[in-house]
């Protein structure tokens, strides 16, 4: 366990009351419990209010482009599997423009944790509908209510092959930090969908609303995949670890030979002469 202040960075500029504060606290606590070394940790984010989290969490951090955090993180983790790579961002980032990368990082079972701060709205761009907004939800781009069923992020991840799927609530940072801790510890791809209210633009899905519309998972065996699917089909949001299974990670499969360390100097690779034979 490491002093939690180690992870302090800039003061957040989120709106007072924003759910993302809870996520930041939980992440710091998880990091502290795990004793994460900021030097060996990379927090990879997309674009959005939530994606600014690496400005507020001290470690290596890369704030990429909208929707692409998972792809960038894949490059990082494969280049140096010794790094602890954590991805974070918003619901738009992960489940709209980033959909393809989420599906494929899950099936690869890359050993990273992905924290989606789901406020069911586009925060940074000022309140447009999000892929997780409920049907009928009124926003500036859906003045007559949304016509679309919401994306169920954890279900999508599970169907794609994620080996760890959980849901937390930023109103309960203690449970959330436990979940995040487990997600980071999990060897394989871990999706943590966090109900994280946007107090400015989303006046429906508030802290209270989430409290009413969620429940704690009890006596659930997270290795039961069928049950996990059932839980995720619930109308209400189950909180806790929904699915968890150890499977070989992508890195373990890829690096059957040896790992090339990016931290060492390199020379011209003379071994290519061995390939010359193909060209004769």
């Amino acid at each position, binding site marked *: 366990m490491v002093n939690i202040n180690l992870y302090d960075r800039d003061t957040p500029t989120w709106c007072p009351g924003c759910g993302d504060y809870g996520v930041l606290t939980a992440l710091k606590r998880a990091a502290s419990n795990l004793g994460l070394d900021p030097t060996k940790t990379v927090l990879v984010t997309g674009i959005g209010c939530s994606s600014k989290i690496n400005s507020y969490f001290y470690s*290596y951090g890369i704030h990429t482009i909208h929707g692409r955090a998972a792809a960038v993180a894949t490059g990082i983790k494969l280049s*140096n599997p010794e790094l602890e790579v954590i991805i974070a961002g918003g619901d738009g980032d992960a489940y709209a423009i980033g959909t*393809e990368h989420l599906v494929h990082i899950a099936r690869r079972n890359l050993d990273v944790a992905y924290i989606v701060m789901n406020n069911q709205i586009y925060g940074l761009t000022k309140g447009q509908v999000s892929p997780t907004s409920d049907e009928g939800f009124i926003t500036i781009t859906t003045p007559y209510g949304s016509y679309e069923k919401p994306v169920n992020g954890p279900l999508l991840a599970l169907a794609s092959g994620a080996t760890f799927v959980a849901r937390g609530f930023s109103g309960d940072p203690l449970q959330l930090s436990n979940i995040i801790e487990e997600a980071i510890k999990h060897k394989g791809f871990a999706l943590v969908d966090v109900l994280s209210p946007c107090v400015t633009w989303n006046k429906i899905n508030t802290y209270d609303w989430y409290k009413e519309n969620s429940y704690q998972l009890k006596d659930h065996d997270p290795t039961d995949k069928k049950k996990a699917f059932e839980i995720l089909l619930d109308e209400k949001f189950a909180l806790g670890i929904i699915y968890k299974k150890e499977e070989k990670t992508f890195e373990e499969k890829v690096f059957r030979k040896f790992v090339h360390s990016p*931290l060492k100097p390199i020379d011209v690779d003379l071994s290519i002469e061995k390939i010359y034979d193909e060209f004769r």
Partner: protein
Amino acid sequence: MKINDLAVRIGGQAGDGSLATGEILSRYFRRIGFYVATDKDFPSRIRGGHTSYAIRGAQKKIYSIGDRIDALLSFDEDSISLHIDEIEPGGVVIYDNSRKDIEINREDIKKIKIPLANIARKELGIELIKNTMALGVISHLFHFDEVIMKETIKDTYKNKSEKIIEENLRAFDIGVEKSKGLPLMENYSLQILRGEDDTLLLMGNEAIGLGALAAGCRFIAAYPITPASDVLEFLSKHLPERGGVAIQAESEIAAINMAVGAAYAGLRAMAVTSGPGFDLKTEGIGLASMIEQPVVILDAQRAGPSTGLPTKTEQSDINHAIYGGHGDKARIVIAPGNVEEAFYFSFQAFNLSEKFQVPVIILSDELISWNKQVVKKFDLKSLKIERGKLELNPSDKGKEFPRYSLEDDGISYRTIPGIEKGIHLETGDEHDIYGHITENPVNRVKMMEKRMKKIELMKKELFPSIVEGEGEVAIISMGSTMGPIIEAMERLPKNIKFIRVRTLFPFLDDVKENLKDVKIAFVVEQNYLGQLEDLVKLNTGFRNTVGIRKYDGRSFRPGIIERKIREVMGW
């Protein structure tokens, strides 16, 4: 008498094995000490449809299959209708009349009809082996060295079973035998020049792959696309045994962003693609520019726009390579002209990208990417890995490392995750020296200038144009068109100055210098709009240009260039 220069075209339906036969022939040429140039022509479908492969071997350095062929080996009717006029008078057509007999209307060439497929089926029970049999025919007609040819066949199939090798050698012998008595090509003489065996035969894509390996590239992410897939395929085979990673991404967007991630994590990384995929990489390349990550991108150009003609060559992505992407950004765009350069440019691309902390785009075209040429074994000793301001052991700079410190040359020191005392942020938002987001206008101006300053700086280290010849009439080109241009120049009656541009962005000042005494410049390029011509005009102010352009997806022939210049100049 034509000495030490022979062009053969092999044509048939896809699946007839034209490419495999051409492969052996080109290997034979290398072995006897010839240079080689090739040109594939096949449709964007898997079976059926006419495919042809032109292979030329010559004692002199060549980069083009030339204007005409000396021999046409044809397994289908289309080969005849499409290519019969391409045969040099005095040349030969060999037609496999197993499927169908047809009339061949040319009196000035030798015409040989032989039911190769039928013979193959009868004598060896395998119709497809007609190809190797055809090689026997050609060998006999042109007095090839049968021993070397058989070695070549053996080596080509060395990873196959003994049986396959035996069958092919047998097929070859039968081909030779069956052509006994046919009129020999006495007007051709091909000597065996082989001295030291210090050459390789490879295509541009392989050279690019080798260059990347030599440079220590240990990460490639790509999404398959013609004609760039070969590079992914080559590295998928060779990276893992070097501890590297080759990953077929879910899309080109994923690929470029993975490569940026890998670069950020400290590996030399590349992404390879062609037109449609190159479009999709636009945003990711912009991110690399903004966070100053060294990453190498190959765009192997094909005929556009949109899906266009996927298996045909073009040079129409010049504009996108230079200008693609919103905002002002620094990058490097280089265009190799032949296979040898493809290797060295690929190698240097990694050095340049790390020295200047910018994305480097290698712009090849389908012709270079697929053209098999003979090159000297690469001079690895002359190469050096230069990683620029990569700081593996930074001194203590405080809680955050100033990743974007304002240095005189605009290039900051770079650390990568895992390095002690190197922690910092990176972001595609405007940022301060620690990589933290800021919208401060004064900082903005400084950071823009820091990034843009590199453009001037890098000019000094980029590839100047190659100039051949002198004169008031110039030819300007880039990429694969150099082959036909050189041959056109040889035929033209007056002096010509050939300026081959190799760095497209930033555009170097040498082109302007080289145009000083030039009165008229022909800009040869494979696109409609004259993208290179505009680039030259803009950057040199030289405006008396004449475009020689081709946009039917097929490569230039020397004659087209020669004729156009004669016409305009009244020569």
